[in-house]
């Protein structure tokens, strides 16, 4: 992915996530743009490390601006980035089935890390409650990933040609 596109996607995630996702949210759930873009950007980067760094920094600033705690979301996005790199080494990233499975797994992982760190910091939410919300988050993230797939992946000659 070209640096300009990467920056643009991260800016979109940073500003649209808190301000415009309400347009498509339902029952208090919505997509996690930063998570989806992190997975997508990491998979399409020749050198994923700087991309993970950028996405982690975006998550840290987003948390500072809009969250109660700074740290849980940053740690979660960092973990998502690292695991996406590992998954990308073992599977064909152009496969829609792989992307769907990966985004579902990353959504669960992201929520798990968020819950653990927030729990340590004193958030009251029960793990079962968090788990009950996951199907909605996964569906939304799948929809965003499908959109990215049809916009970018399908037309690309290779994963690094975007």
């Amino acid at each position, binding site marked *: 992915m070209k640096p300009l596109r990467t920056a643009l996607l991260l800016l979109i995630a940073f500003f649209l996530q808190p*301000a*415009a*996702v309400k347009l498509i949210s339902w029952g*208090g759930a919505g997509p996690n743009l930063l998570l989806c873009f992190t997975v997508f950007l990491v998979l399409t980067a020749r050198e*994923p490390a700087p991309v993970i760094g950028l996405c982690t*920094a975006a998550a840290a600033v987003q948390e*500072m601006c809009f969250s*109660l705690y700074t740290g849980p979301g940053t740690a979660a996005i960092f973990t998502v980035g690292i695991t996406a790199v590992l998954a990308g080494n073992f599977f064909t990233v152009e496969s829609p089935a792989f992307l769907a499975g990966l985004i579902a797994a990353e959504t669960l992982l992201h929520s798990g890390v968020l819950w653990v760190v927030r729990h340590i910091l004193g958030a009251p939410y029960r793990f079962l409650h*968090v788990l009950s919300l996951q199907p909605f988050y996964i569906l939304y993230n799948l929809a965003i990933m499908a959109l990215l797939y049809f916009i970018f992946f399908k037309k690309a000659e290779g994963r690094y040609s975007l």
Partner: protein
Amino acid sequence: MRFREHKQIAAVILAVIIAVALIASLLKTGDGPAGLKENLQGAASYVTEPVSKAADGIRKGFGGIFRFKELTAENQRLIEETDRLKQENAGLALKREEKEELEELSQVFHYDAARENDLQAADIIAMDYSNWEGVFTINKGSEEGIRTGCTVVSGDGLVGKITEVSKRTAKVAMLLSDNNKISFRTAGEKGRTGVLQSDGGKGLKGYLLEEGESVSKGDTLMTSGIGLYAKGIKIGRITDVEKKTGTQRVVVEAEPAVSFFQLRKVAVIL
């Protein structure tokens, strides 16, 4: 190890150092007037506020288009209903009980605290729907007199409290995201007192302070004025009552009066 691999590891280490430095600097300067966090929040609000308002506009516009027929029919029905009520109203005098009920309702919607203090209306400019944190940002901050700990309400009842303030914005923690206890009193003459807190999900859980007292499902809970929140604000409705055998403690479960994720505007009690 090849140079490229070195470069990747160096980049990851650099990213971690930057993230740790950001967090450390925010911990150090977060409370100061020119803190990094406050500056970031202020800068972000210049973009999120217009984006949020545009999104609200789009939502309303689409809603109006899809519900045009429904709204026209509803409008006609309301006109007829108003005419009928006007005629009925002319011939009716308020009974004593009705008057008391109206006074109670008035208390709910006008809040004691609101009468005694100033209210600051605010728009919600940022709320994350991708996780369950239960926090949102409003477009009013310390310049409008908002302070950490101020009570936040909506037309339906208690929303939460201010947890962080910058010059132009403030963060609000919803009731459900807060570990703090809320002191309540049941509405009506025989007000029973107790404490509630988030049940870790979508509801509230607590107990009555006096053992052996009784409350019923459906009873309305109001803030008692003791503790963090101002007095006389509707918290929610009791959904379950259980008397613990042995201890005589009455445990209550309640559902909040406010639909948190439907909120667009709130008021802060200064």
